[in-house]
């Protein structure tokens, strides 16, 4: 323990804490920009400066550890002036078009400007001018709005270990961009959107599909159907100031109906369907000597990563389409036929926590007869904006239920949204398929939680199934090395590109509350616990679907509609 004084308050801090953390522990807030929790400080932006007795200059509190007897002042005329000057300089080199900016009212630069009372333009000069990168299907980069805090760069390099963007050039011309300032679509970027989540401004944002969706909803010929991913219901409430981890499923369904969707289905239905296909595929691979370990295929960010970086392991990836693509494919085949609707008139919109899924829905092989399985993807954030435009008062909506049959789901599907969930759901069903009996204890604690790699061995009948869960694409390297050089002991490996899984996807509400992931995850586990059925193979609608249409999992028809293929894209992206 270290004792110090901050603004006259005696503080007991732990050894190794920074001044910033110590101040926070007693309710003193210090602004930060370049600082990112859990990563080493860079001390680049200096907005967090404080006065420390005995020091001549101001000290960046995010980078300075506490020492015994230290006397700190976090708020003084000198500190205020320094911070205000930094903010003013940033603002004067910024487009200042807040009125038409997608981050209006959710921007750290705006907040700082307000906090330090910037009321006049004192440093008018040349402002930077850069083109917007709209090359990718998922994201936009607007370097003119970039304040060079470096948070995206650090997340991309140090957390995701992709390194698609970096600082280039220097001084006034300095810009965070891709190599050769070419578009994101030809870079190493997997479009996970983790950088969007940390960007303080609108320099990084999703590519919006609201317009297309609005047009489709206005088109009388179109039969618009929405489907909602598991992770969205546990996060969307945050945009309406509800407590973290509020489950808003009922409101969400009503809201989507009011937007004009003819049907509102649940991607969780397709998650159950995915489990039926994936578990069967795994068992087949184990029994018939197929490529093992088998990787999950629900995360398009992960798929994009493998195709660009490790095409050697492509045949280890389950051929199952991701759940929302399955849902779309079933809607345009089985459902269209059942309801007598021309599949060409069906317009499927996926509400997703994910930016990559926009890119995924554009993949040519995820279509039938030149009709994409999914027509458009809206992120959680876009849906909120759409609700606002349509005058839908989310807080006051009555609750309602998903439509059927593609709205029924089990608890196993709900946990798809969190790291380890797909594995857990698959095990519940694989156990039944192999042994013919049901698992007693459904929760697999070993593969829950935020560890980067989670491993376990599960006894199924007389088979010891070795599993691993990769939580965040940054942790996948060693696992891939093992698979590539044949030393992997695993049978089944789940990979999710985003740390924490889709619940922390790049399309989720943006704010820096530290508790967000844990609380959202809790909400999903609660949905699972309270569910009437908790194993995918108990989903009555899925059972009916097989009886009426597919026959059995991995049947010829199932392969045609629910499975896909992958391509070696290293050649295109490297050299």
């Amino acid at each position, binding site marked *: 323990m270290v004792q110090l004084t901050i603004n006259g308050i005696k503080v007991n801090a732990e050894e190794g804490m920074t001044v910033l953390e110590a101040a926070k522990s007693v309710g003193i807030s210090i602004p930060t920009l370049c600082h990112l929790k859990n990563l080493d400080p860079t001390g680049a932006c200096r907005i967090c400066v404080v006065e420390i007795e005995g020091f001549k200059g101001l000290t960046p509190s995010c980078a300075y550890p506490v020492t015994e007897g230290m006397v700190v002042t976090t708020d003084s005329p000198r500190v205020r002036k320094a911070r205000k000057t930094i903010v003013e300089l940033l603002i004067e080199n910024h487009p200042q078009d807040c009125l038409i900016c997608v981050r209006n009212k959710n921007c750290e630069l705006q907040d700082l400007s307000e906090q330090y009372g910037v009321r006049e333009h004192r440093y008018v000069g040349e402002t930077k001018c850069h083109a917007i990168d709209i090359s990718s299907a998922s994201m936009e980069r607007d370097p003119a709005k970039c304040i060079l805090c470096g948070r995206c760069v650090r997340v991309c390099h140090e957390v995701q270990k992709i390194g698609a963007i*970096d600082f280039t050039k220097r001084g006034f011309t300095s810009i965070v961009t*891709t190599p050769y300032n070419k578009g994101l679509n030809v870079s190493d970027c997997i479009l996970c959107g983790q950088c969007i989540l940390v960007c303080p401004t609108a320099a990084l944002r999703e590519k919006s599909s609201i317009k297309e969706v609005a047009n489709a909803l206005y088109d009388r010929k179109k039969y618009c159907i929405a489907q909602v991913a598991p992770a969205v219901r546990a996060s969307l409430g945050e945009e309406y100031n509800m407590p973290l981890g509020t489950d808003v499923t009922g409101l969400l369904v009503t809201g989507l109906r009011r937007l004009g969707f003819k049907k509102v289905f649940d991607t969780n239905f397709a998650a159950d369907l995915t489990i039926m296909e994936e578990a069967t595929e795994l068992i087949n691979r184990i029994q018939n000597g197929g490529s093992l370990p088998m990787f999950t295929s629900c995360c398009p960010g992960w798929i994009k990563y493998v195709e660009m970086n490790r095409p050697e392991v492509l045949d280890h990836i389950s051929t199952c389409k991701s759940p929302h693509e399955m849902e779309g494919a079933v809607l345009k085949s089985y459902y269209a036929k059942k309801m007598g609707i021309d599949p060409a008139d069906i317009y499927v919109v996926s509400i997703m926590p994910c930016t990559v899924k926009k890119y995924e829905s554009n993949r040519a092989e995820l279509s039938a007869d030149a009709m994409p399985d999914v027509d458009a993807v809206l992120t959680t954030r876009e849906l909120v904006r759409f609700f606002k435009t349509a005058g839908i008062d989310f807080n006051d909506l009555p609750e309602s239920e998903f439509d059927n049959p593609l709205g029924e789901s089990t608890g196993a599907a709900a946990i798809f949204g969190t790291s380890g969930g797909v594995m857990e759901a698959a095990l519940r069903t694989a156990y039944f398929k192999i042994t013919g009996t049901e698992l007693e204890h459904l929760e697999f604690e070993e593969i829950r939680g935020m560890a980067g790699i989670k491993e376990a061995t599960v006894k199924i009948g007389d088979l010891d199934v070795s599993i691993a869960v990769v939580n965040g694409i940054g942790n996948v390297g060693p696992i891939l090395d093992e698979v590539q050089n044949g030393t992997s002991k695993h049978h089944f490996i789940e990979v999710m590109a985003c740390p924490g899984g889709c619940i922390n996807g790049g399309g989720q509400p943006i704010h820096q509350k530290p508790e967000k992931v844990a609380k959202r995850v809790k909400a999903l586990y609660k949905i699972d616990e309270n569910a009437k059925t908790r194993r995918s193979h108990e989903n009555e609608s899925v059972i009916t679907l097989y009886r009426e249409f597919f026959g059995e999992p991995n049947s010829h028809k199932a392969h045609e509609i629910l499975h896909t293929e992958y391509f070696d894209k290293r050649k295109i992206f490297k050299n």
Partner: protein
Amino acid sequence: MHSKIFESYQPNDRSALIPLLQDVQNIYGYLPENALRDISDFVKVPLSRVYGVATFYNQFRLTPLGENIIRVCRGTACHVKNSANILFALETELGITAGQTTRDKKFTLEVVNCIGACSIAPVILVNDDYHGRITVKDIPKILKKYQTVKKTETAEVMK
């Protein structure tokens, strides 16, 4: 052509990045994209970082040099003697901006700080020749002189 340079370095060693960039530049006179990609693979540093480093330091060039390099001094003494006009005139005449090379690869235009010839400001340096006390009117004449120089004589500059 540059594969040999890797022989003197350990793979996966980040500290080899800058020396490798220098070696490549010594071979080509600039840093070609495919060499940057090879370096990125060799030191296991993302291409974005390699590119970032290459654009951060003034010593590295990402485009090939022209046959003749014109360096316009923008130091204090030359500034006082209107070197901004000289630069502007050169940019107009060549149709490029500082840092670029003409399409016919004849000229590369660069801006430098004081080159120690303040007494004859404003100064431009073409290859190794100093041209002092020049005015905007002198520029076409100077350019013409180098336009006609045969390739072999400028080969030295290219290395």
